[in-house]
């Protein structure tokens, strides 16, 4: 199968462009690293949910969630191709690099979205499918199309999309929602701003070139560092909420308290850097916070998963 795209209206070049995309490019469109975090958090939502789902249906649910998340990533890459090409961090992505044509990515994303939501609804339940559909819609339309280029609060509000997977996992098992998945949602929601702003601090030039109003570009790095600190102060105790609400045990309490303390320390180091010149010269605190924030979230969810797995095995 060859895919051919014309050059569009208003051009005298009528040479058809052939698709030069390889399989790896289509996989890259789905943002596999984001997808893996989505699948992991959804899995934890499924494991801690009361009730039982046959392992084939559990696998199906996870596959649908993974594909749905990947589809949202592909649609985001389709929409953001014009700014991705201007940013060093994203210029090598399949569309700005010219390996995948925009039309291909759009068709790919839409097809996968519809397929994932339909399969989840048909084979698992409608509640989970509805949440998955909403997640995709929120990420593509609300975040990518409306918020990202319009407001420095883009990542705060848009972060809700990345926080929904544990709720989808829970709903896949129970058909509904409860306080536990909502707490997991809140943890990821409050985690998202300091995580992304730490990244934005050492990529400010990129975002400025692309015209994306990330907080460091609009309000300066001093305000960004202050907000990172504020959100982390909220995040550290919130991370312990599963233990406080009784669905995380003593092991989780230990992991969340130590992890939260480490996040506070790293955020404090970023906050105290002092000036934009200092941040530019020494990106290490921001990079360390960004890197640890990924580990922190992984450890929180891994601790919950481990506790529930051990409880299930020991009866």
């Amino acid at each position, binding site marked *: 199968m060859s895919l051919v795209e014309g050059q569009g209206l208003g051009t005298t070049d009528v040479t058809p462009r052939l698709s030069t995309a390889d*399989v790896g490019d289509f996989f890259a469109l789905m943002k596999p690293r984001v997808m893996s975090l989505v699948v992991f958090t959804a899995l934890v939502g499924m494991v801690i949910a009361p009730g039982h789902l046959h392992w084939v249906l559990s696998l199906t649910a996870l596959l649908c969630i993974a594909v749905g998340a990947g589809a949202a990533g592909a649609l985001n890459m389709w929409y953001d191709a014009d700014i991705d090409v201007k940013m060093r961090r994203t210029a090598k992505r399949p569309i700005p690099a010219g390996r995948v044509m925009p039309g291909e990515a759009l068709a790919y994303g839409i097809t996968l979205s519809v397929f994932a939501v339909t399969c989840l609804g048909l084979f698992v339940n409608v509640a989970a499918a509805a949440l998955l559909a909403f997640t995709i819609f929120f990420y593509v339309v609300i975040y990518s199309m409306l918020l990202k280029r319009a407001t420095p609060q883009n990542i705060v509000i848009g972060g809700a999309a990345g926080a929904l997977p544990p709720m989808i996992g829970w709903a896949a098992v129970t058909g509904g929602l409860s306080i536990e998945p909502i707490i997991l949602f809140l943890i990821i929601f409050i985690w998202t701003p300091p995580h992304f702003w730490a990244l934005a601090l050492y990529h400010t030039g990129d975002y400025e070139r692309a015209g994306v109003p990330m907080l460091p570009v609009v309000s300066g790095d001093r305000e960004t560092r202050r907000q990172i600190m504020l959100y982390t102060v909220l995040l550290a105790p919130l991370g312990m909420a599963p233990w406080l609400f009784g669905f995380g045990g003593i092991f989780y309490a230990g992991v969340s308290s130590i992890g939260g303390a480490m996040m506070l320390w790293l955020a404090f180091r970023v906050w105290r850097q002092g000036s934009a010149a200092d941040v530019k010269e020494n990106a290490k605190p921001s990079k360390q916070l960004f890197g640890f924030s990924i580990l922190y979230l992984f450890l929180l969810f891994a601790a919950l998963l481990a506790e529930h797995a051990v409880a299930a095995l020991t009866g």
Partner: protein
Amino acid sequence: MQPDHDHEGLVLTEEQRRRRRNRSIALALVLAALVVLFYAITLVKGPGVLQRPI
């Protein structure tokens, strides 16, 4: 009908052919996996395969 030898049309390079072949193989594998998955789901859910709780 005789082929039109004057009209060359698009000619793929070896690399384009390779990529097209890889895409086709990947698609075939995904479809095969879906067949297996749907069959397994049918076995698990039995006759009520499309009956699901809201």
